[in-house]
């Protein structure tokens, strides 16, 4: 079961918001509803699921209702209609005591402008959540210290927030959110107030933290690059408060659901998002235990390749053989392919982005082997495949033009004059 289920959620601001819902359902536009009822539609029929331990990014431009959405999840803002089930409990109709306990134990929030208490030092800011739920002094101090260690703020425990830089203040915000060990972490444009360098650094650290902690993170951002970098799945909100597409970063980049999303993603550097794992192809392989030079040659001829990878019986990569060496081996009458295998080629993990593969791919003549952490062979990636992938989706009109066509165009225009 999904950890968070959002079902047909609406949030409408203004007088008598319930009145606007039938209008929305009839398909009246946001502007017309505003004119007719004075109500602003912030979230329009959102339905989706957030799985345990994933990083779910909600991405939209300002005014798309993304901040409203994250505030609905812990009911800082009460939705107008719909359900939000967390572990099966609907928080929209939950009573206040239950809601308070949920906020204290299960979910915590990181804010865009940090929301730290200026009169408290770092460690007592981090203790804040624990203090509210009445955890005793020693225990909360100890937990806060651990959280501070996690975000790399040792040595700043007794500084005031105003003495820290923006990036460090947000670490305090993050430590405060982690201190009570919540299951769900809500991050509202958490890195948007930071400058680009620090932002990218914080993103990396969040990814590292997440690899260790496995929280369910719901991250709001207006920055597509950020969304693609940290999101396991992304929901794109349109300007009308409607969810336009939900999917993995690659999924969104390669199959935009509509024109809005397409426009959105067209400027993204695909090479940073598409990974070796997605574009890898099968390649002929030989198995140490059963293949000799004869079957190797047969295989290479059949596939028209001059090389083949050698695996052991459990598909662990052992090396690569060149066709010349196999021929030589056969001439000598020997049978052990391993003796001529070379380890002089590139390998990459399936998570490597193709921009990182490009340099190696240009330099080497043989394909790059894609292997996992245990050296299991998954496939290959070569130069042509990378270029084909990068070429895909490029607007042809803005590409280079053959010179003869340029000349033709010029004569066309002169003729017209």
């Amino acid at each position, binding site marked *: 079961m999904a950890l968070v289920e959002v079902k047909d959620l609406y949030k409408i601001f203004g007088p008598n918001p319930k009145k606007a819902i039938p209008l929305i359902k009839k398909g009246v536009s946001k502007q017309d509803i505003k004119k007719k009822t004075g109500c602003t539609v912030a979230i329009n029929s959102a339905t989706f699921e957030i799985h345990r331990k994933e990083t779910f990014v909600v991405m939209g431009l300002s005014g798309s209702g993304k901040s409203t959405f994250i*505030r609905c999840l812990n009911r*800082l803002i009460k939705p107008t209609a719909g359900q939000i089930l967390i572990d099966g409990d609907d928080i929209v109709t939950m009573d206040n005591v239950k809601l308070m306990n949920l*906020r204290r134990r299960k979910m*915590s929030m990181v804010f865009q402008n940090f929301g730290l208490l200026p009169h408290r030092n770092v460690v007592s800011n981090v203790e804040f959540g624990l203090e509210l739920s009445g955890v005793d002094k020693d225990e909360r101090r100890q937990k806060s210290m651990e959280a501070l260690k996690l975000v790399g703020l040792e040595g700043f425990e007794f500084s005031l927030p*105003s003495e820290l830089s923006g990036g460090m203040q947000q670490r305090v915000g993050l430590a405060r959110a982690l201190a009570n060990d919540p299951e769900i972490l809500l991050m509202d444009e958490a890195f948007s107030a930071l400058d680009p360098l620090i932002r990218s650094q914080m993103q990396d650290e969040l990814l590292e933290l997440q690899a260790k902690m496995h929280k369910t993170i719901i991250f709001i951002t207006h920055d597509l690059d950020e969304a693609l970098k940290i999101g396991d799945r992304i929901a794109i909100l349109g300007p009308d408060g409607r969810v336009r597409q939900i999917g993995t970063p690659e999924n969104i980049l390669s199959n935009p659901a509509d024109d809005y999303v397409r426009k959105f993603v067209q400027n993204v550097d695909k090479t940073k998002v598409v990974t070796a794992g997605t574009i890898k192809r099968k390649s002929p392989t030989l198995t140490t235990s059963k293949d000799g030079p004869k079957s190797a040659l047969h295989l290479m001829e059949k596939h028209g390749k001059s090389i083949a990878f050698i695996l052991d019986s459990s598909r662990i990569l052992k090396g690569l053989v060149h066709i010349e060496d196999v021929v030589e081996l056969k001439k000598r009458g020997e049978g052990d392919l391993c003796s001529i295998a070379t380890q002089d080629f590139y390998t990459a993990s399936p998570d490597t982005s193709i921009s990182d593969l490009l340099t190696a791919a240009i330099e080497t003549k043989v394909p790059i082997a894609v292997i996992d952490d245990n050296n299991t062979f998954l496939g290959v990636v070569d130069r042509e495949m990378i270029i084909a992938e990068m070429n895909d989706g490029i607007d042809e009109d803005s590409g280079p033009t053959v010179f003869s066509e340029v000349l033709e165009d010029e004569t066309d225009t002169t003729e017209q004059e």
Partner: protein
Amino acid sequence: METIKEILDIGAAFEALINWLRENADWLFDFIAMVVDGFLDGVNWIFQFPPAVLVIVLFTLLAWKASGRGIAIFTAIGFSLILYMGYWSETMDTLSLVIAAVFFALLLGIPLGIWASKSDTAWKVLRPILDFMQTLPAFVYLIPAVLLFRLGPVPGVIATLIFSLPPVVRLTNLGIRQVPVEIIEACRAFGATSNQRLLKAELPVALPTIMAGVNQTIMLALSMVVISGMIGAGGLGNIVLKGITQLRIDMGFEGGISIVILAIFLDRVTQALSHIGKKSRDKK
């Protein structure tokens, strides 16, 4: 015109109200008078009982600790001058009146300010009342105060309390309303009850603004305490009043100087206290 005035005589209506209060709620005013009087006596005893020199030394130390050497030197010289001019007892009377009035004003004003910040309706009701209290000429408070509490220091404290109440209500309200939205949201998101939110976040964050209100209240109280000398509140107000009525320029001037010294001392020390929190917060 005559008849309308007769039917709708605002002044007479107010008078009738005061008379009704005197007849029907006298026990309440007696009780209030008793509490205020007791408090005032206690404060006055603290300042009058020890030798003047010791009090001057303590004031100087306080000024030094709060706002530095300059004000400490000023305090030492200023209060010695008051002692030398022979107005020590009157000055301490005035200081006690101010402290009593401010104490009760804060006791009333801070909760009112918190209430106003939490409820827009409360603020809508309170605002015109505060405007009324602040703009009505100070002397006018003296009349009902005398009628309800008779002559002496108690009506002085009551009139002063009412006159000096508005700033602390206004600035408490303002301070809490100005607490950044994200801090409020953080409190709610981490599951704070409304009391926890008020005590752990809103009041501490609003403290510098509230302290500015306290400072204003103290300064207004000092000016009103002097005026309430007219209803026998005693202290430096008496000296100034005597100076005016008997055309004693020397007395009026000396009394005036004593008030100024007390005012500067109170202002600088309370201002410095209100900045202490802020300073440690803004320090980079």
